């Protein structure tokens, strides 16, 4: 009688998720869910199947859909979102985080085939945005949003972020590009004009030489005063705070280089160092740009407000109308539907409601509330819609204050390695320059200024300044290739110091996609399956949802006559006259059966035992290896919001003596991190959701693991694609080794400096020597760091 239903595994034609053959099909193609199938059907009806030929499985999984767009019926909201409107034509730029490949671009730019009301649509890939012109007499914004949602490209609306968000970053990026362009232009020309000097052609007519030198001086002006201006600003700021960052010696070098060169040209004593000066700025800017590239597509700073709804349904007269959340007042009656967030503290006026507080407390199971109870903001309605009377308007309510709690704000920043080195570097250089100037003042006063400036010029830490950005840039590149994205390069520094790693359980080390459910017992008939689905549909318990997903049958045929759910035990339903009982062995009256280790749901139909659904949380692929690798250098800990059902399984996975704590609230996790930090530990935390946000932020490095990089981003230091999990060990060790590369390259650049300074102090530094040495040191450091990182990554199989 024992039989497991086995189906052949395949991947969904639309989204590429794992699924089984023969369950949901269309045109002999398999889909993981009806949502994906629907998208396919919409596309094939409109002859848009090219979508599937451009990339393999380009679609977005349709399993977790919740979006509702009726707030777009509110004219005020629509008006604030539109970029252009003349009553007939409207234009809007939508943020669509799901845009991820060329198929997406193709489909979104052919929206006019799906709906003739759309006149024109254009994708901005790096910003994940879609600009749509449409005829508002034919299609409303709401219809447009719903249409996009139907094909999997759910637009994200957010009033607050509308203006600022991307534009600041864009502005910065554009400015950097222009600065780089100008520096590059001047660099090329200065090099060209310096050729006679390089080649030592002195027989040239004197006039030319003077002309060339002055031209060089003119070309250096925009580089120093525009392209390199940031370095002066930064150096000035850091001096005001009484410490010397790396920009101080750079700025000092630039000033001295420029002044000395102008002096040489004006006094006709030499050709100056304009080529080194301009080249230095150019290379530095390239390094900066290289670092910036990696972050483009990611928006890390989407705070909790982006989880807030834009609008809720408020009772106006006798109807519920969408109202902007900020306009809600005490006493308003609002209607919240399934999966919507409760935006303000309020009192429930319906008989009962199930509220999912997983965002706030980490509790996985919805809480039942009844009429008249005070409901805190931040919960999500699970199941039936419910009505509330608002008690406290949005801005003051619980969620806001929770996330504004101290510690949810940022931690102290430690001094970067490069800045620590540059502290001593600057002092040493200035000291050497002064000492040798004093020495020459007594031996040969004519050489004093020459030596003083030569030392400062040749010591200009161009190579030193390049070593960190290029090493980090290459590391970020490797990490990005494997879908681990760091917020900025400083995170690398923090990562290298980590000694304690904390894991969250659900969704972090378990794989939410690969939940294994099997049914043990005689196979259910289609009719029986529908009965069971009808019964579990009324329940909000996660296990009920799994069973429903697993059976995947149509429940509508049956009438539910009675339904009772006993918390923690099971459900008893009468469906079309048939009694269906699901739950623990005890609950269904089969005490004789052994209780399974994993979560199990036993089933009886009309009092007859039919079998058991076994739900196993599957741990992520390669979890054991990752834990072994990480435990070598770090102390591991596990903090879970769930109960300790899986303690035994986890004890086997983690090294002996690993601290494990269960039933932890977000606040407990945060306090735990704080306590560790107080004891001098540097903590890295892996978490998955908003309920970890506080702890993620508090820890020295907070990493959010997500199934879908583009759509999820609570405040954290790094975002990691779940698929990268198995490579975590190698990736982290690459980051650690990055430090060795930086130190080695710093050693190389210091060697150049020591060599150069020796010549400078002796007073025999020729402009030609400087002209060769300075770019050579920069280039060799760039080549060294890039090659070393690549080599190490390759050795680790990354």
């Amino acid at each position, binding site marked *: 009688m024992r039989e497991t239903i086995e189906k052949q595994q395949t991947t969904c034609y639309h989204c590429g998720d794992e699924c089984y053959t023969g369950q949901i099909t269309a045109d002999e193609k398999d889909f993981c869910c009806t949502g994906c199938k629907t998208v396919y059907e919409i596309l094939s009806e409109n002859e848009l199947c*090219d979508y599937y030929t451009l990339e393999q499985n380009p679609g977005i999984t349709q399993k977790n859909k919740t979006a509702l767009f009726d707030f777009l019926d509110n004219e005020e909201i629509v008006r604030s979102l539109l970029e*252009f409107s*003349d009553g007939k*034509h409207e*234009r809007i730029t939508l943020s669509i985080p799901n845009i991820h490949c*060329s198929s997406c*671009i*193709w489909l979104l*730019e*052919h929206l*006019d*085939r799906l709906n003739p009301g759309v*006149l*024109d649509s254009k*994708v*901005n*890939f*790096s*910003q994940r945005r879609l600009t749509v*012109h449409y*005829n508002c007499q034919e299609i409303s914004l709401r219809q447009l949003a719903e249409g996009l949602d139907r094909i999997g490209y759910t637009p994200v609306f957010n009033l607050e972020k509308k203006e600022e968000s991307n534009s600041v970053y*864009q502005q910065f*990026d*554009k400015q950097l*590009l*222009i600065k780089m*362009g*100008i520096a590059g*232009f001047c660099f*090329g*020309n200065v090099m060209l*004009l310096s050729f006679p000097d390089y080649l030592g052609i002195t027989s040239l*007519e004197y*006039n*030319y030489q003077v*002309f060339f030198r002055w*031209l060089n001086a003119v070309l250096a002006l925009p580089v120093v005063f525009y392209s390199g201006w940031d370095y002066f600003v930064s150096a000035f700021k850091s001096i005001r705070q009484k410490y010397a960052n790396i920009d101080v010696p750079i700025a000092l070098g630039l000033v001295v280089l420029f002044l000395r060169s102008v002096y040489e040209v004006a006094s006709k004593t030499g050709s100056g160092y304009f080529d080194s000066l301009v080249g230095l700025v150019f290379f530095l800017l390239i390094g900066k740009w290289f670092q910036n590239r990696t972050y483009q597509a990611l928006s890390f700073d989407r705070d909790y407000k982006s989880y807030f709804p834009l609008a809720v349904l408020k009772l106006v007269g006798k109807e519920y109308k969408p109202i902007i959340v900020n306009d809600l007042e005490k006493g308003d009656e609002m209607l919240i539907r399934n999966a919507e967030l409760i935006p303000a503290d309020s009192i429930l006026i319906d008989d009962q409601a199930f509220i999912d507080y997983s965002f706030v407390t980490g509790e996985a199971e919805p809480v039942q509330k009844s009429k008249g109870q005070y409901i805190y903001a931040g919960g999500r309605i699970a199941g039936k819609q419910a009505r509330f009377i608002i008690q406290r308007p949005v801005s003051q309510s619980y969620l806001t204050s929770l996330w504004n709690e101290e510690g949810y704000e940022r931690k102290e920043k430690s001094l970067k390695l490069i800045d620590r080195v540059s502290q001593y570097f600057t002092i040493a250089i200035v000291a050497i320059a002064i000492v040798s100037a004093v020495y020459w003042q007594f031996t040969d006063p004519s050489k004093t200024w020459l030596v003083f400036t030569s030392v400062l010029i040749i010591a200009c830490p161009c190579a030193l300044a390049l070593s960190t950005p290029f090493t980090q840039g290459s590391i970020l590149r490797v990490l990005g290739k494997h879908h681990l994205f760091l917020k900025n390069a400083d995170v690398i520094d923090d990562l290298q110091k980590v000694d304690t790693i904390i894991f969250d359980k659900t969704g972090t080390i378990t794989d939410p996609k690969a939940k294994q459910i099997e049914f043990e017992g005689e196979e259910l008939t289609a009719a029986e399956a529908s009965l069971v689905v009808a019964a579990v549909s009324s329940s909000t318990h996660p296990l009920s949802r799994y069973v429903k997903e697993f059976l995947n049958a149509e429940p509508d045929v049956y009438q539910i006559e009675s339904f009772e759910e006993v918390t923690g035990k099971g459900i008893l339903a009468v469906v079309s006259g048939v009694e269906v009982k699901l739950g623990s062995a005890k609950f269904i009256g089969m005490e004789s059966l052994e209780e399974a280790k994993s979560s199990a749901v036993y089933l009886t139909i009309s009092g007859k035992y039919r079998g058991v659904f076994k739900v196993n949380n599957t741990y992520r692929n390669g979890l054991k290896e990752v834990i072994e690798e990480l435990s070598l250098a770090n102390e591991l800990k596990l903090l879970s919001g769930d109960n300790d059902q899986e303690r035994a399984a986890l004890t086997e996975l983690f090294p002996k003596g690993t601290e494990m704590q269960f039933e932890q609230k977000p606040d407990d996790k945060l306090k735990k991190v704080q306590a560790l930090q107080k004891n001098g530990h540097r903590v890295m935390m892996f978490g998955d959701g908003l309920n970890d946000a506080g702890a993620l932020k508090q820890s020295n490095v907070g990493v959010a693991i997500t199934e879908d990089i583009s759509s999820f981003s609570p405040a954290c230091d790094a975002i990691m694609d779940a698929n990268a999990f198995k490579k975590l060990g190698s990736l982290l060790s690459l980051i650690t080794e990055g430090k060795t590369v930086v130190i080695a390259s710093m050693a190389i650049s210091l060697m150049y400096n020591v060599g150069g300074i020796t010549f400078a102090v002796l007073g025999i530094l020729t402009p030609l020597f400087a002209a060769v040495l300075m770019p050579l040191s920069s280039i060799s450091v760039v080549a060294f760091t890039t090659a070393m990182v690549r080599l190490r990554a390759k050795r680790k199989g990354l």
Partner: protein
Amino acid sequence: MSVILVLIVTSIIVAIVFLGAFYWAVRSGQYDDTYSPSVRMLFEEKKKKKNEEGAGIAEKV
């Protein structure tokens, strides 16, 4: 002799024109999104019925 000066000045002016072109390209947003244009050009004929309305609004906006 002065021909070299003329040449250098000319070459720098030409280079400045290109620099200006680069500046214009950055300002007008051509570097905002470096991925989609490269894909877009490979799509087959973009619009079946490019209606006049579409052209009209593009100008207006």
